[in-house]
């Protein structure tokens, strides 16, 4: 069942086509990875769908409703949420306790601890976000977005800047929470090991367009993908 659909969605920055007639569908309940080299248009696509950018043309349909020009809070109300990196935030975000980060979103103390508990952060509820280890901070980024109770959750590089061992821990936690909550997730990720391990489906972007779309097995077998990602074909 289709949860989200974009129809010929385009975004240009001057001559640069960040998204070029993109027709993107997300099915309910899947864990989808969006891959591609830097500048491929992944983040632009997420920004368009989450409302951070306005498209030049095309439409965005969420559960059949046109949300192309809906305000950010309306999209969130409809069920589209995205994570934001707290590490890049102002002072208050760094000194605010974990519980407060969630509390701002859910407004209720009990629900706050429920969300923190799901991400294994309950013991640190009164620790300032700036005092967390990098991996925990990444989980908090996701937890804040998850607290919005979305149907569709966008995660922009949830494992960037952490060690390989921590990556696995973060993705184990994220994927189990997301699947347990029946949340559909779209993850932007560079680490292909992580992508192949956790995704139901992988979509690859290149220069604002979709290059490949399939299961991890299909993507592994696709020579174009290897060409773009690695610079050499796998079976050369």
């Amino acid at each position, binding site marked *: 069942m289709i949860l989200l659909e974009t129809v010929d969605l385009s975004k240009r920055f001057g001559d640069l086509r960040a998204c070029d007639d993109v027709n993107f569908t997300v099915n309910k309940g899947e864990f989808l990875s969006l891959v591609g080299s830097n500048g491929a248009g992944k983040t632009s696509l997420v920004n368009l769908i*989450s*409302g*951070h950018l306005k498209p030049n043309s095309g439409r965005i349909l969420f559960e059949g409703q046109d949300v192309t020009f809906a305000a*950010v*809070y309306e999209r*969130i*109300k409809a069920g589209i*949420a*995205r994570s*934001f990196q707290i590490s890049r*935030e*102002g*002072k*208050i*975000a760094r000194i*605010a*306790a974990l*519980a*407060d980060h969630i*509390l*701002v*979103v859910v*407004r209720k*103390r*009990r629900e706050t*601890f429920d969300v923190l508990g799901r991400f294994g952060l*309950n*013991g640190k*509820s*009164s*620790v*300032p976000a700036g*005092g967390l280890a990098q991996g925990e901070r990444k989980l908090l980024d996701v937890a*804040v*977005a998850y607290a*919005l109770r979305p149907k569709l959750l966008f995660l922009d590089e949830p494992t960037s800047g952490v060690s390989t061992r921590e990556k696995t821990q973060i993705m184990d936690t994220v994927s189990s929470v997301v699947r347990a909550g029946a949340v559909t997730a779209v993850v932007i990720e560079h680490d292909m090991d992580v992508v192949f391990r956790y995704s139901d489906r992988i979509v690859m972007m290149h220069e604002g367009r979709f290059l490949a779309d399939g299961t991890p097995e299909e993507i592994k077998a696709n020579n174009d993908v290897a060409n773009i990602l690695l610079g050499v074909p796998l079976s050369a």
Partner: protein
Amino acid sequence: MTVAAVSRVQYRPKLLLFAAAAVVLMLLALLPPYIGLYQTQLLTYGLIAAIAALGFNLLLGYTGLLSFGHSAFFGVGAYSVAFLLRDAGIHSMELYILIGLPIAAVISALFGYICVRHTRIFFGILTLALSQVLWTLAYKFFWVTGGSDGLRVARPTLLAGMLTFTGGGSFQRFINAYYYYVLGVFAICVVIMWVIVHSPFGKALQAIRDNETRAAFLGLRISRFRWVSFLISGTFTGLAGILWVPLNGLTTPEVMYWPFSGEIVFMTLLGGFRNFTGPIVGGVLFTYLKTYAVATTEYWQLLLGVVLVLLVMLLPTGIVGAISAVAGKLRPREKSS
């Protein structure tokens, strides 16, 4: 850790804070017999200024919006009382508050609705412009407002008419009783503001202040939060105006004029706008500073100007900010998490 356990850990420092606040309140309540009538009156003015600055700081410190028109709400409070006395014959302080507060709230809501569409300097200029409109009305419509002569306000009755102030020694009795009245209202205001800034609503305001984009992706309706913040802020300052006018006995268009908005900003900067207690300390200190500056020198504006320049250059976080920074350094490092 259970919810209860976590909550207990979080509330322990708050208990300490409440104890400290109770001690300060007790000290303030014990003061009048020792400091005499004039100082009691001055301190009442100080507490009223503190309420105005407390409201103002919800916008500046917690929402990140610098209003340059808060004199308007102070003036609306003051003139509401004057009109209620003159046109409706009301003498009860409680009725002044009960009727004046909604009026201040409505004007705040109206001004806020227009102003919160913009931020930074544009917001400041809009608040300034709107407050000047009210000042002009008060100044020019002299057949309604008394023009530059203003309107006189007699001493009201307190506590639903239980305390009246006529006859011999009534001035002394009024000053003493009114001090405790204002102290009571002040304490309630502090508690309400404390609850507001520590509620999820208050946290949301701070999130908006720090990063509007991220706050939007937390599902917060930015302009609505700013509007409600403006409304609360203006209403607090309006309450200060309501309390001020019976003490002053007279309201003139001066209280709506922009220099008074500047004074409210000054108070908040003096105490420190990044602290909850900053505007309270600033409001009281400014009242003393101005009173003594005016009494000491003809060039009192110059003196205040120098103080402001020194303040911004040497103590950008205000007096309370500086004290808490020093206290933070002196405190032994137990845990650095």
